[in-house]
């Protein structure tokens, strides 16, 4: 007799989105937004929502990459400094190229300077990945070193001052980095595209499956023939590229690049990923979580301002939310018996 009959009798369990920390935090985000609206109705105005979504896009874009790194049980502390260094490289290239014959071709200086900035980001990511995946240094120490190296370079290059985004091609640069389409700020549109691509990558491609496998059980991934080294290098590369891209967007937003751009952002970025459900022990996390986590942090900040509470409370509240989110996940796992 076929024994399959009694399998079908077992309860069907789904382990999808609704059972995840991301869903809980998403719910918290909605409730918090409603609470803030009740305190300060201006919160729900279109203008304010657009403002919020633009503000958190920068952190969220980087947090997507941080999430990939965290899923492999790694960490990337260098992202804040990479944002600054790449923005500086891009701004320098833009003004330098404006003085050259290429400036006669409209758009070319922008294109080349962004490509140059992203190449710098790729180089940093590859270095991180090489030291971590090939040499075998710990991610924490490697990227802590890179944090310092990149920030140091940012100060050296700018001599501690800021760099303006200028030149004949800067209008295009501003349009691409700080424009809006149907009132929607382009950083938000970039975020949505990159978030979609990251979600697709994680859930529906072999690369994504391997990223989870590396974080879940690196030894077994290796035994199964997963190219673990390549996967690790890839996540640090993507993390640095996204950080660099967000840095370029911020340069367009600010109109100049201060050498202390995005100082301390690495913690906010990692906090966003963790609030959204990424587990520093590896193996768990998602694109939606990174975005929701980033949004939650910004909503708290914005809400405090609108409610005329001292904005300095933000860090304290974010800290409480981090611990609450992880605590909630722990309680839920215990109930599920794992």
């Amino acid at each position, binding site marked *: 007799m076929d024994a399959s009959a009694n399998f079908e009798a*077992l309860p069907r369990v789904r382990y999808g989105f609704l059972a995840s920390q991301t869903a809980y935090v998403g719910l918290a985000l909605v409730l918090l937004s409603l609470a803030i609206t009740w305190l300060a109705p201006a919160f729900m105005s279109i203008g304010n929502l657009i403002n919020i979504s633009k503000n958190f896009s920068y952190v969220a874009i980087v947090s997507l990459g941080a999430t990939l790194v965290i899923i492999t049980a790694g960490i990337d502390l260098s992202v804040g400094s990479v944002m600054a260094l790449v923005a500086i490289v891009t701004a320098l290239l833009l003004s330098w190229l404006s003085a050259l014959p290429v400036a006669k071709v409209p758009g070319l200086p922008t294109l080349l300077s962004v490509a140059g900035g992203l190449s710098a980001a790729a180089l940093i990511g590859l270095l991180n990945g090489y030291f971590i995946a090939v040499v075998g240094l710990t991610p924490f120490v490697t990227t802590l070193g890179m944090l310092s190296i990149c920030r140091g370079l940012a100060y050296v290059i700018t001599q501690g001052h800021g760099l303006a985004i200028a030149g004949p091609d800067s209008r295009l640069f501003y349009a691409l980095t700080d424009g809006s389409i149907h009132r929607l700020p382009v950083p938000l549109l970039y975020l949505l595209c990159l978030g979609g691509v990251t979600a697709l990558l994680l859930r529906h491609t072999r690369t994504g499956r391997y990223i989870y496998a590396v974080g879940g059980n690196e030894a077994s991934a290796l035994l199964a023939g997963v190219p673990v080294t390549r996967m690790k290098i890839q996540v640090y590369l993507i993390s640095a590229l996204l950080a660099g891209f967000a840095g370029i967007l911020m340069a367009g937003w600010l109109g100049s690049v201060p050498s202390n751009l995005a100082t301390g952002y690495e913690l906010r970025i990692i906090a966003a990923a963790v609030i959204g459900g990424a587990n520093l022990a590896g*193996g768990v996390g998602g694109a939606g979580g990174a975005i929701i986590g980033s949004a939650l942090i910004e909503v708290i900040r914005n809400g405090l301002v609108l409610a005329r509470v001292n904005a300095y409370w933000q860090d304290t509240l974010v800290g409480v939310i981090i611990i609450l989110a992880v605590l909630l996940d722990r309680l839920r796992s215990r109930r599920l018996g794992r």
Partner: protein
Amino acid sequence: MHLALLQLQNVSHSFGAVEALRDVTLAIGEGEIVGLMGDNGAGKSTLVKILAGNFPPKAGELVWEGQQVHFSNPRDARAHGIEAVYQDLALADNLTAAANVFLGRELLRRIGPLKLLDHRAMEDRARGLFRQLKSETRAEMLVRQMSGGQRQAVAIARTLLARARLILMDEPTAAISVRQVAEVLQLIRHLKNQGIAVLFISHRMPDVFAVCDRIVVLRRGRKVADKPLAATTPEEVTALITGALEAA
């Protein structure tokens, strides 16, 4: 004598100062079930990992169907039809049963320019394999939430995916219930009937004597016996494992 499917010639391996394998020469015939026994640390798992392509031996040769082969990773070994079930099962417990079964050889479907995971096909196929193994394992269940027997089924199902010629099983019956042991042994006989050779590692004498054609004993990295089942007894094998008997 069968045509030797796989031959190891004077294979040695060491981890630093630890000599895990010393000068081991061994042949496995087509469709043959070879029991590999030995005390803890005798070198059994090391042998399996070398055959499965996890690392090359420090010395000696592997000969597959008369041709010398070098495996630089598990894919190479699999390409020749060698599959392994590892002692620690080697599963990623944050992934589902189906994802683990297909880890490293995911089924893909083409959508426009993209190649995406074919979740449905992998789950269906995994479900079929679990049914074949008569295991109550759900394809979409996370390994983290599974029992020892269910994990075993996932690990064995992995080997059934490809058309394997040789399956290496490192203590597949160590962590499971009596009923499941009987099922695993039945499965091994079933593999033999299909002409698949099995290298079966176990500390459990009755299991080895129930299914094997031949028994090989390792002691401190050396091969100390290699006998057809009919020519030996559990008592002799025990003595060989412990060293009470030098060699046979």
